[in-house]
């Protein structure tokens, strides 16, 4: 937070910042850390990391990771974006041969919050796999975005990459953006992506009411199940419970 940022403020013409809250960013740009935090997962190792976007710098939270996953290594990253007025998590991943990147993210926004997860997963070598799951629940005038680019290099054969992005809008005034982007130069790869934006199932809400469940609890149960997808890949039970507890507390504020 000392040196003034020498990198110019991003603009909307920059695709990766297309949905960002640039006004909020401009207010703190001088204090934004320059350059990403670097993480290297050594060959054959497994690293798991959970990040709940911290609130710093007058409601603006920027986390930028640059990750190298060496041959045969695994990196499992689980994210919760909920607290900041403008919160951004960007992750750039380089996968070596046979490496695996697992990511689960939940975006829970209300009011005028703008929350986003931006990933670039580079399958630069053969036989690497990646799986990204993002679940967003948005109320009020909140905006939640996921921009996920998967790049597969020419010789990165047998790449298996998938993305699943689902958003639930609790109010008509909330906005969800989902932008999967595939750039594939190899010919023997599997890349899957799916994106949906929806509302809570009214038939299910009435079914729950008919069994005596009050509306607020019914919405909470359904949303809890919905965002659980983002954390199901977190194998450490205690860590999963910890991040889910944080997510549930945030959900309480949305229903």
């Amino acid at each position, binding site marked *: 937070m000392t040196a003034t940022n020498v990198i110019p403020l991003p603009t909307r013409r920059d695709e990766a910042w297309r949905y960002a809250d640039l006004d909020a960013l401009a207010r703190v740009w001088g204090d934004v850390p320059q350059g990403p935090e670097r993480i290297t997962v050594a060959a054959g190792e497994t690293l798991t990391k959970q990040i709940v976007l911290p609130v710093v710098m007058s409601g603006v939270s920027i986390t930028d990771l640059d990750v190298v996953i060496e041959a045969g290594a695994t990196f499992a990253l689980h994210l919760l974006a909920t607290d900041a007025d403008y919160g951004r998590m960007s992750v750039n991943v380089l996968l070596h041969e046979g490496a695996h990147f697992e990511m689960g993210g939940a975006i829970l926004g209300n009011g005028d919050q703008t929350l986003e997860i931006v990933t670039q997963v580079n399958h630069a070598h053969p036989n690497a796999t990646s799986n990204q799951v993002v679940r967003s629940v948005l109320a009020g005038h909140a905006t939640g975005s996921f921009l996920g680019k998967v790049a597969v290099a020419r010789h990165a054969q047998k790449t298996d990459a998938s993305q699943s992005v689902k958003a639930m809008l609790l109010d008509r005034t909330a906005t969800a953006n989902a932008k999967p982007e595939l750039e594939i130069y190899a010919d023997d790869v599997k890349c899957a992506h799916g994106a949906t934006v929806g509302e809570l*199932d*009214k*038939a*299910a809400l*009435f*079914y*729950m*009411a*008919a*069994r*005596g*469940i*009050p*509306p607020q*609890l019914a919405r909470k*149960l*359904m949303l*809890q*199940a*919905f965002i*659980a*997808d983002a954390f199901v890949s977190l194998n450490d039970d205690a860590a999963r419970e910890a991040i889910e507890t944080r997510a549930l507390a945030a959900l309480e504020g949305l229903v």
Partner: protein
Amino acid sequence: MLQINNLHATIGGTDILKGLSLTINAGEIHAIMGPNGAGKSTLAYTLGGRPGYEVTEGSATFDGQDLLALEPHERAAAGLFLGFQYPVEIPGVSNLQFLRESLNAQRRARGEEPLSGAEFIRLAKEKAALLKMDMDMLKRPVNVGFSGGEKKRNEMVQMGIIDPKLALLDETDSGLDIDALRIVGEGINTIMRKPDRAVLLITHYQRLLDLVKPDFVHVLAGGRIVRTGGAELALELEEQGYEAAA
């Protein structure tokens, strides 16, 4: 227990119920039969309080309370159970969690202590066994991947656990094979045929009524009850059709 008087209801501006009156006393089992489009499911949904079903005239009183003034979940807590013709799938929420939340929400609303986990599991096991449903199915997400018959059987397990005063069962017999029909019929008798309970069966067919013998059979046509009789009326309908009987 339930008094419906001159009930009129519309869906999206279309009049479906046009002056329906019906009284159900404790200890009675009533059956409502009638042609497609007569308003049978509308009656069930209107009494259950489904959004979009608007009452324009008339009243429904349940145990002395104005049923129509209650929210859907309050109607359930008051003792009304709506068995769905098409039970809804709820991905990610297990049957057990769903039922425990349902039962305890009702108990809290009535000022009763919620059941502990162990007490609830004991109750769920007992009712699942009664309906010959595997406990594993209770651990699965609500109705997800269930066959039509399994969904209906699940409705009856739910009814057993919730133990309502009045059950409105909307075509609970459709989609059941002969064995499942017998299990469901016996389930209804065991759970609901009691002096302080009552049932309204909505059905197209006689076969469920062979197993759950109704005290009264009503013919619903054109949004109102056009004829009422005893169990023998169902047999007459089966033979002669609705038009002749009405």
